[in-house]
């Protein structure tokens, strides 16, 4: 199938016009942002650091959308300042609407997160309960991952971002992208 090798096709086309294309497929290595294991570790860190018990639930839980936003920022710590600004402008509807459309579009259209959540729910690591996410029957997967990453001081900037996010007010409007 020709479409499976778009790079090679493009190179052939360019070569036909006298160009000398230099193919380097290594540069097209997929980003680790699309790696399942990385995503699972980040979800585990978000859950461990932000899920909490409350008067309605004795098990730690977190809103699904909040989890989605937090993991999105954790993987992109340079956006912490952006969300802080967005949070600060939340009382000003017009300013808030203008604020960083890119960030809103980015996290709302992060479809891979939904797939990762489906996978973790299917594996029994997490469970969906209405709007919330709670630990599943095999929640040890999540807890072990987090403690291993912590023990080996992996993903420090993600953890630092998640700690910073604890001090930022994130409203339901923000979670809906408003």
């Amino acid at each position, binding site marked *: 199938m020709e479409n499976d090798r778009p790079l090679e096709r493009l190179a052939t086309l360019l070569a036909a016009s006298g160009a000398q294309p230099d193919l380097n497929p290594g540069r097209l*290595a997929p980003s*680790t942002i699309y790696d399942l294991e*990385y995503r699972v*570790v980040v979800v585990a860190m978000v859950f461990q650091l932000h899920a909490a018990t409350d008067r309605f639930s004795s098990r730690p839980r977190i809103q699904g959308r909040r989890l989605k936003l937090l993991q999105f920022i954790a993987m992109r710590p*340079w956006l912490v300042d952006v969300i802080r600004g967005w949070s600060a402008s939340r009382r000003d509807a017009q300013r808030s609407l203008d604020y960083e459309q890119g960030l809103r579009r980015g996290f709302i259209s992060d479809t891979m997160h939904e797939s990762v959540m489906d996978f973790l729910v299917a594996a029994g690591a997490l469970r969906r309960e209405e709007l919330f996410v709670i630990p599943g029957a095999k929640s040890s997967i999540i807890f072990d991952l987090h403690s291993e990453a912590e023990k080996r001081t992996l993903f420090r900037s993600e953890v630092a971002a998640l700690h910073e996010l604890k001090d930022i007010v994130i409203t339901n409007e923000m979670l809906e992208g408003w």
Partner: protein
Amino acid sequence: MIRIASIEIRGKSDRGDFIGRLEFAPGLQVISGPNGFGKTLAAESIAWCLNLETIFGRKESDPTFFPEAVLEELNLPDVKSVRVLSSEAQLTLERHDGERLELTRAITHDRERIRITRLGVKSGPSTLTLLTGSGTMADPTIGFQRYLFEWLGWPPKPATTFEGRDAFIYIENLAPLFYIEQQEGWTDIQARQVSRYAQQQIRELSVEYLLGALDAVDQRVARQRTATLENALRASAKLLADQAAQMFLKQGWAVDWSGNGSVREIEGRWSAQTLRQALARDAEIDIKKQRAIAVERVVALRRIVTTDPVDPANMSAGSSASQLVVDLKQRRHRINSELRTLHGQYSDNEHLFESLVHRIRSATDVHRLKTTGVGRLAHLECPTCHRELDTEEFDLTEQTGPEVEAHIEALKRDRVLTRQTMNALATVIRTTEAEMARLDGELHNAQRALEDVTASVGPVREQIVRAAANLAAQERFIEKLDETDASIEELQKAVDGWLAEAKAAHALGGTGTDVGDRVAVFTKALGQYLLALGHSAVVDRGVANLRLNGGQYEPYLGHRRLRALGSGSDPARLVGAYTLALAAAGVTLKGLHPGVVILDEPLQQNPDTRHLGLFLDFLSQDLAKNAKFQTLVFTFLNDDQVRKLRDSGTTVITVDGHLLGPVPPPPPEQARSTEKPEKAP
């Protein structure tokens, strides 16, 4: 070379005076006694008299490592729990020429002083009291450390701390190479030296010092000083470069005079051209020429203002002054807008760079995660149907280690590109800001001229005022040129001074030393002692591949660090061999090793009788018995072991009963002859 002649601990209790004394001969001696009989007290007293308490992890003059017997309460043979009123230790050292030194230091009171009695071979005894502490190394009048170094024939050698301060090589730095104390001394070679007084490379310096490689010590310290100096030089270069950038920017000249990079790089750039040459190269400015042109203009303008005829019909002065202001403002507006764009681009690239740094870090962690197996999600199954979950069904992918590596490489390439873009943008911003500064100056002059022209009445006056304004602007320009010229001169002097300092820093390190030959002797001795002590890795593989790694003197067997090889008790064997071999090499090479090795409780480092037997065998070998230095081994041997060692010709001193006991009464004739008995200390 010295030897320890005796150690004596004495004091007063509420039941009278007490005393304990051990005398030592040259060569190997094993001091054996059960636990609690005072062996360790004797070993620790030697350290105390040498001002070595810090190797027990205590502060200077802190005696709390001593047992209660010399501090508070003592059990005498007849009476238990006797209260100790005072105590002191006395160490007697004997030098190779026969001169003796008695070092007496109080344990309970007045611990910051050491009483010294020097017993010369030909001269009579002389006594003095000196202060203890490492600080006394710098004090040649009342410092104990300085005195001891001089008596031992050890030259004081300066060292550098990590903070760049001056220090010395102290006795505490050297002692862990010949005094192995029982707590942590056996865990690693020179383990207790780490960070003591924070001298740089003190482990290496101590080995070189004891081997007598003093030129190597000097060169190592010189290299450290060069490195410290280079840090300071880099900081001052940055400062000078900032000053130059500010000065040029003020004039609206974009000149690349960077203070970044290593000292060698900066030196290369700055010595290749002067500030004036850089100015001519980057901004095409020759101050002398500019000044000459400006002076010519001033002369011409003065002529216009004073003697040249003025055309009364010429009405253009006002409008041209106004037009100039308008033109300059438009140019300023355009450059300002360019600058905003450039700053925006720079800021975007900064964000991109930040995100790349983060992504590289994350991807590296993901790579660790995958290669170490932490967090692998292999074999996840559905909790209800127990079917293994297929990630493809969820549209998810797991990347392989090589894929992540390729991604990291790609990110690193992007980081380099982004850095290059940022550098290029910074250069353009600098040039544009310089242009802006120049334009601001011109606009300021033009506005002033316009104000003056507008205020004047009639075309003649307008023309004269315009010329006068231009004249004033030119004169100001000449003044600024002169100021800048002087600043460049001054800054160039500072740059020349910096270059001279950099050159001097490079000249600090010397060349040529015999340390290699000395280390070869040490390595050979180390191999002999490791084999004799039965180090399992060395016995199995032989000493052919034994080496001390370059410059750090860490033993390696082939490519493996010897510390990591062998059985659980082999590290202690390595410590023993290293210590004894250093003494043997130091004595052979006529280095600065004192010629004394103290091993406290070496047998405790062995887990079973087989390993313990290895050390006992060593003590009966010629290598240990016939060593040309004194070895004092404090340990506990049973009767069989004592007999066996004595049969093989090894000297064993047994401590039967506690070392400390009441002072025996003087013999009758001595008692009669002493009219005024000396007071107990």
